[in-house]
């Protein structure tokens, strides 16, 4: 579940500002966030995940008041509760497929790589068609394969929420649908809430909820 109420956020002094009157995405729902460039789509994901803290308002993600958490608690919350799929994928070039899938486990003391985690990572990779590519480096994979690695990395910690920032932006239409199929399939199987930023309006009918951010963001600071 994702819930934002009367959230205000400003980048620096006199920079971009965002006001979200109300946003609610129920558990297990696939939601798309749309809006023109500069409307605050990426900022929205940052607020939901706790990367950014709002100036005011309430941000609840997976049952936690993210806006009230300390920076350290927000990091801990993020790595255990949020799965990310980035537009540039941002895979680690020196780790193989399995290493990339397990990457979140290497970054925080709250997570530990053990036999169960390894087995889960392998199963996830198998389900995403990466079973025979586990030892390959990202540079040895196709764009579609890299996309699947990014999805596996987002899901490996079994987060209740997955945030995807235009993850299909660099794919051709067929690959886009295939990637979405896999992402939806995995999220549905785990009842994971998915919020995906996209520019592609042709994909919207595949989502059960669409959040239009048009008019929420402003290049100038807003007055309350």
């Amino acid at each position, binding site marked *: 579940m994702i819930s934002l109420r009367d959230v205000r956020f400003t980048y620096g002094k006199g920079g971009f500002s965002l006001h979200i009157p109300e946003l609610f995405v129920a558990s297990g729902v696939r939601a798309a966030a749309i809006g023109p460039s500069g409307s605050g789509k990426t900022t929205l994901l940052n607020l939901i995940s706790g990367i950014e803290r709002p100036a005011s308002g309430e941000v609840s993600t997976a049952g936690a008041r993210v806006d009230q958490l300390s920076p350290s608690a927000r*990091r801990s919350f993020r790595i255990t509760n949020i799965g990310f799929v*980035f537009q540039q994928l*941002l895979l680690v070039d020196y*780790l193989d497929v399995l290493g990339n899938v397990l990457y979140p486990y*290497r*970054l925080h003391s709250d997570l530990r790589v053990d036999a169960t985690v390894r087995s889960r990572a392998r199963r996830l990779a198998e389900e995403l068609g990466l079973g025979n590519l586990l030892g390959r480096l990202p540079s040895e994979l196709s764009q579609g394969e890299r996309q699947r690695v990014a999805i596996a990395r987002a899901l490996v910690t079994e987060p209740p929420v997955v945030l995807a920032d235009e993850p299909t932006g660099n794919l051709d239409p067929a690959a886009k649908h295939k990637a979405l199929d896999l992402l939806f399939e995995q999220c549905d199987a785990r009842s994971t809430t998915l919020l995906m930023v996209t520019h592609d309006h042709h994909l919207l009918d595949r989502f059960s909820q669409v959040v239009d951010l048009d008019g929420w963001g402003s290049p100038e600071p807003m007055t309350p």
Partner: protein
Amino acid sequence: MKDSLYLAWRYLRHHEVKTLLLVLSLTVFLALPLVMRSMSRAMQQSFLARAEGTPLLLGQKGSSLDLVIEALYFQRKDVEPVKKADVDAIQSTGLGMAIPLRTGLRTQGFPLVGTSLAYFDLRKLRIEKGRGLALIGECILGSEVAEVLELGPGDALLTSPSTLFDLAGVYPLKLDVVGVLEPTQGPDDAAVFVDLKTAWVAEGLGHGHEDLARADADLVLRRQGDTVTANAKLVQYNEITESNRESFHFHGDAASYPVSAVIVVPHDEKSATLLRGRFVDAPTLQIVRPAQVVDSLNAQIFRFERVLQIVVWTVGLATAVMFVLVMALSWKLRAEELRTMTRLGSSRWKALQIMTSEVALMVGASALLAGLVGVLMARYGEPWVQTLILRSS
């Protein structure tokens, strides 16, 4: 920490060329002072050990260091020779034993040393193959000479002419190899030993030829009393064999024949003092304690080592700056990776941990390699220094 080390290790493995170069640079930085110190110590010890095994050294007045280097390491320093009479004079004092050394000639690139049998006892040189010197024209090879030239008892080798362009000069002498010495890890390994008389023959002071009494009349230019002058057709021997050994002879007074240096082994400390006293005011001779000469040389080496240390630290500083620069640039290039880490939920502390782990792994590997170099230097430094510096002339 385990995960940070894992990520650091994977990164370093992936960028193996860069890692290898950095590790090697750091190894040089860490090993250089060790190597320099080991070499300096090995050099000093090597000098001192041989010098301490040589109680006194008699030679022509001049540089005592050149005298010691020529007599102990057979490196050609062109020291003025003393006379065979000086050897006899020392011997006749009854204060010690005189061991003559004639150096300066070379054979197949190795120094040819003319000496007496007492030299082998003094240096505790043992015959590994064959036998010791017995007759004029024979030679014994140091272990390295035998190995390099692939020679052994029963073989022969030629002395090198002093100059290739002097047709009237000294011709090479064919020497019979009768023995090979056990290795000593010292200059004796790289020398060819002959009897003092053989050395004189090799340098043209003694020679052998056809018996003029029985030679053809057309060979004789002039007869005047006991002196017979022959023309150039007279066969000169370039090899000392059983059949011509008797024909080898020396002209002039043997007492005036040259000896490069004389090792003097006094019977006791008192004899040593008396001997030194006798040569204090000698106009043309000097008697030195090689250990004292080497001590002063070691002091120079130590001073030079301190200068080198400054150079090493400067190189070290440059290496450290380069290392920091490479690491800083590397992390700048990895800014995206750091951002991804932060977005996923990692702290800056974690990034610092990974960075520190990378540095620690590289420094650790370099320290290990430098340590290995240090151990190798401690074990093999002295023979290496012997080969590299002391035996090269």
